C-alpha cells in the first residue's frame, strides 16, 4: 500500500523512507502501517491456529507436546485479539475517520505516530517469549492465576507487552475521540456522522474505560509473581476469583471493542450496495450506545461456573440476555435496509451479507450461553470456541475484509480484482463454516476446549474442522494476493465515488485520496452526506 509516494505532489521533496514511515504523522500513512501490521499478525496468529488444528486432526499426540500446545492457544488468542483485529480497526479508523468527518488529519498526529510504533515493540516482546527457556505463557489468553503464575519469567514479558498494547490503544482512542469531537467539518453534526464514525467514537470510550483495568489486573499478576503479594493467592489471603472479576470487567467490553467498528463498516457497506439509505439511523446509534453501556454489566457471564451465588447468577444472566435486544435491532435494521433496495453483490457486499448471517448465528449461540443452566453444560467446551469464532472470524474479521475491499479503491486509486475477490469470499465463507460449525457438535458432545488430545468419539468432527481450518487458512493467501495486485499491478482506475451507491464526504475526494485532504474544511452541500435527513 506504499504507492502514495507517487501522489505526493504537494510536497517539495519526496521524503526518505525513514522520514516517511518512521516519523509518519499523516493519518493515511499511519493507517496503512496499522493495516499492514495487522495483516502480518493475522498470518502469525493464523499459523499458530494451523498448528493447533494439525495436532487436533487425529486423536493421539503427533506433532507437539501438550505444554507447547497450550503456548499456541495462548499466543494465538493474544496475537489475533491485540495484534490483528484491534490494530486493523485502528488502521481503518485512521484512514477513514478524518475523510468521513472532513478533517485534515487526526487531531494529535504525533501521538498517532507513537501509538502505532509502540505496537511492533510490544509484539516483538510477546513473540520473543516463544524462544525463552520455559517457553511462552501457556495459561490461556485469560491468564488466570494461580496457573499463570506457575509459568516461567516469560510472563513478565507478556505483561509488559500487554501494558504497551494498552498504552497504544488508549492513545489511539484519545486521538479518535479528539478528532471526532473537534475536527468535524462545519455542518457535520454528531447525528449526521457516518455509522463507522459513531461506532468508533463509542468504541474509543470503551477502550479508555477498560484498558487501564486490564493493566491493573496484569500488574497485580506481576507483583504476585515477582514481589510477594497475594492478591490472587488463596494461601496468602487473596482470591483467585478476584482476578477473574477484574479481567472480565475488561474482557467483556473488549469483545464489543472488537465488534462495534465492524458493525460500523457493515452499516456503511449495506446501504451503498442496496442503493438505499441506512434504515433506522438513529436507532442504530442508540443501539450501539446501549450495547456499550450494557457491556459493563455482564462480565460475570464468563464466570458462571466458578460458584457465584444464585442472585449473582440471575443478575448476570438477565443482563446478558438484554444485550441481545439492541444487537437484534442492528440486525433487523440491516435486513430492512436491504429490503426494497437495488442490490448488487460486489465483494464488500458479499462479505457484509455473510457477516450479518454468521454474526447472527454467533449471536444465537450467545443467547444460549447466557442461560446459566445451559451454560453449565456449554462452558469451557468447543461450543464456546465455535460461538466466539463465529463472532470474531465471520464477524470481526469478515467486517475488516469487507471494509478493505470497500475502501481499497479509495486508498490506492485502483480497483481490486473482483473475480479473485469473489473467489476469496466463497472459499472463506464455506471454509469458515466447515471449520467452526462442527465445533458446536464437539462441545455439545462433551469436548473441553484447550486440549491437545481427545477421546476417539471426537475424532470425526475434529478432522472435518481441521480440514476447514487448513482450507480457510490457505484461502487468506488469495486476500493477500489481491491486495498486492491492487496496490502494485492493477490497471483499472477507480473513480472518486468508486461505488454507484456510495455517499459521504470520503467519496468526494479523488481516488487515490491525495496525501493531504480537507486542508480547507469542505462545504457540505445537500445530499452529500449519507445521513442528512435523519431529523424527521
Amino acid at each position, binding site marked *: 500500500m506504499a504507492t502514495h509516494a507517487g501522489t505526493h505532489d504537494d510536497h517539495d521533496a519526496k521524503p526518505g523512507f525513514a522520514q516517511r514511515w518512521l516519523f509518519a504523522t499523516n493519518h493515511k500513512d499511519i493507517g496503512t502501517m496499522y493495516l499492514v501490521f495487522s495483516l502480518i499478525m493475522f498470518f502469525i496468529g493464523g499459523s499458530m491456529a494451523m498448528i493447533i488444528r494439525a495436532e487436533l486432526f487425529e486423536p493421539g499426540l503427533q506433532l507437539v507436546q501438550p505444554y507447547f500446545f497450550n503456548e499456541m492457544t495462548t499466543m494465538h488468542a493474544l496475537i489475533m485479539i491485540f495484534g490483528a483485529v484491534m490494530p486493523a480497526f485502528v488502521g481503518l479508523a485512521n484512514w477513514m475517520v478524518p475523510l468521513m468527518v472532513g478533517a485534515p488529519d487526526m487531531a494529535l498526529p504525533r501521538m498517532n505516530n507513537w501509538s502505532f510504533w509502540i505496537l511492533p515493540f510490544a509484539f516483538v516482546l510477546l513473540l520473543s517469549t516463544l524462544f525463552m527457556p520455559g517457553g511462552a505463557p501457556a495459561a490461556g489468553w485469560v491468564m488466570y492465576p494461580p496457573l499463570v503464575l506457575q509459568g516461567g519469567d516469560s510472563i513478565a514479558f507478556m505483561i509488559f507487552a500487554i501494558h504497551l498494547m494498552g498504552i497504544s490503544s488508549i492513545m489511539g482512542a484519545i486521538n479518535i475521540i479528539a478528532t471526532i469531537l473537534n475536527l468535524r467539518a462545519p455542518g457535520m453534526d454528531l447525528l449526521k456522522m457516518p455509522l463507522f464514525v459513531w461506532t468508533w467514537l463509542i468504541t474509543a470510550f470503551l477502550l479508555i474505560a477498560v484498558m487501564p483495568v486490564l493493566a491493573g489486573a496484569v500488574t497485580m499478576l506481576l507483583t504476585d509473581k515477582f514481589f510477594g503479594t497475594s492478591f490472587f493467592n488463596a494461601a496468602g489471603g487473596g482470591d483467585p476469583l478476584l482476578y477473574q472479576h477484574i479481567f472480565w470487567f475488561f474482557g467483556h467490553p473488549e469483545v464489543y471493542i472488537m465488534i462495534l467498528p465492524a458493525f460500523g463498516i457493515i452499516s456503511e457497506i449495506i446501504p451503498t450496495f442496496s442503493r438505499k439509505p441506512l434504515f433506522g439511523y438513529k436507532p442504530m446509534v442508540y443501539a450501539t450506545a446501549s450495547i456499550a453501556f450494557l457491556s459493563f454489566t455482564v462480565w460475570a457471564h464468563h464466570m458462571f461456573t466458578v460458584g457465584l451465588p444464585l442472585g449473582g447468577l440471575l443478575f448476570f444472566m438477565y443482563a446478558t440476555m438484554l444485550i441481545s435486544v439492541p444487537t437484534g435491532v442492528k440486525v433487523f435494521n440491516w435486513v430492512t435496509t436491504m429490503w426494497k433496495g437495488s442490490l448488487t453483490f460486489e465483494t464488500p457486499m458479499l462479505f457484509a451479507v455473510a457477516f450479518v448471517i454468521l454474526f447472527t448465528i454467533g449471536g444465537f449461540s450467545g443467547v444460549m450461553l447466557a442461560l446459566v*443452566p445451559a451454560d453449565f453444560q456449554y462452558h469451557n467446551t468447543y461450543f464456546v470456541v465455535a460461538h466466539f469464532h463465529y463472532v470474531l472470524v465471520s464477524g470481526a474479521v469478515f467486517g475488516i475484509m469487507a471494509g478493505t475491499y470497500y475502501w481499497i479503491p479509495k486508498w490506492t486509486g485502483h480497483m481490486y480484482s473482483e473475480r479473485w475477490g469473489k473467489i476469496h469470499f466463497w472459499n472463506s465463507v464455506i471454509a469458515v463454516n466447515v471449520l467452526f460449525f462442527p465445533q458446536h457438535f464437539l462441545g455439545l458432545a462433551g469436548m473441553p476446549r484447550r486440549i491437545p488430545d481427545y477421546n476417539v468419539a471426537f475424532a470425526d468432527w475434529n478432522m472435518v474442522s481441521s480440514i476447514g481450518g487448513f482450507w480457510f487458512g490457505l484461502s487468506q493467501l488469495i486476500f493477500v494476493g489481491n491486495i498486492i495486485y491492487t496496490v502494485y499491478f492493477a490497471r483499472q482506475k477507480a473513480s472518486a465515488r468508486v461505488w454507484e451507491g456510495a455517499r459521504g464526504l470520503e467519496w468526494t475526494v479523488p481516488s487515490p485520496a491525495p496525501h493531504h485532504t480537507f486542508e480547507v474544511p469542505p462545504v457540505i452541500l445537500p445530499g452529500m452526506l449519507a445521513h442528512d435527513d435523519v431529523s424527521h
Partner: protein
Amino acid sequence: MSWTARIGAALALAAGSAAAAGATAAVGHPVPWQLNMTEGASPLSHQVYDLHMYAFWVCVGIGIVVFGAMIVAMMRFRKSRGAVAETWTHNTRLEVIWTVVPVLILIALALPATRILINESNTGDAGLTVKVTGFQWKWRYDYVDYQGRPVSRVGFISKLAFNSDEARQLDSGINPRSLKSKTGYDDYLLNVNHALVVPTHTKIRFVITADDVIHGWWVPALGWQADAVPGLIHDMWGEIDTPGTYRGQCAQLCGQDHAYMPIVIKAVSPAAFQGWLAAQESRARLDTIARTVQVTPVPAPAPQG
C-alpha cells in the same frame, strides 16, 4: 457402517433435526458423530437438556424469519432484475416492534432458566456427600457422609488409567483406537484407575475445591460443570437414575496435562453401594490399626482425612 455412510447419516441427522437426533439418553460417554448434548442421567441434566432444546428451537425460529427475509430481499431486490431502490429511511412502529418482541421472547427463555437454576442451587437434603479435590493432574474423592452418618476415612486418588497414559505420549506408537474397556468401549483418555462409586436414586452433594490451580469438574450426564477453585468450596448436586458408567473431563485449563485428568463415575444400586462403602471403611480401619501397631506404641494422631 462405512465411512461415507456414516457421513451421510450424520448429515441427514444434521439436516433433519440436529435436535433430538444426536441426543443420547443415559449413554454416559460421547459417541462418534454426536451432534447434540446428552440428556444425561440426572433430573437436572434432563431439565438442562430441555432448556437447551427450547432455546435452540427459539433460535431456529428467529433464524428462519431473519434469514428468510434476507434471502427474499437478495432474490427480489436485485439491481440486475431491474429493482429500483425506495428512499424511506425509518419507521418508528417497526423499531418498537422489533425491540419489544425480542424482550418478550427473552422473558419466555428466562423463566424456565430461572426455575432450573433455583432447583440447581438447592443442595440440601443430600443422601451422600462427596468432596472432590482437583490436583495437577488428578482428582481426589473423599466420602464425607452417607444417609446422615459420617463416613470414616474413605477417599482415594483417581487419575488417568495407565494404558491411556502410555498411549497419549507424543509418538507413543499406540493407536488410540486400540484401547478398549472390558465392555469393548473405546475409552482412550476417558478411563481412570479408580472410578468414583456412587449409589443410584440418591441425592448426592458434591463439594468441590482444588489444591493447586483452578480445575473444572464436569460430567455431562450430571448436567453441569463446577470450577474447582483453591481456597473455595463449590457445591452442586446430582442424582443418577440409571446404574452405569458416566464419564467426563477436567473443563478448566489447568496446565500441561489438562487433557489427561478424566472423571469416571460408577453408579450402582444403593444396596451395592452400601456394601462397597462398608468394605472401604473396614479396610481403612484395618489400615489405621496396622500402621499404629507398626509405627508407635502410643495412640496415633487424629487421622488427616
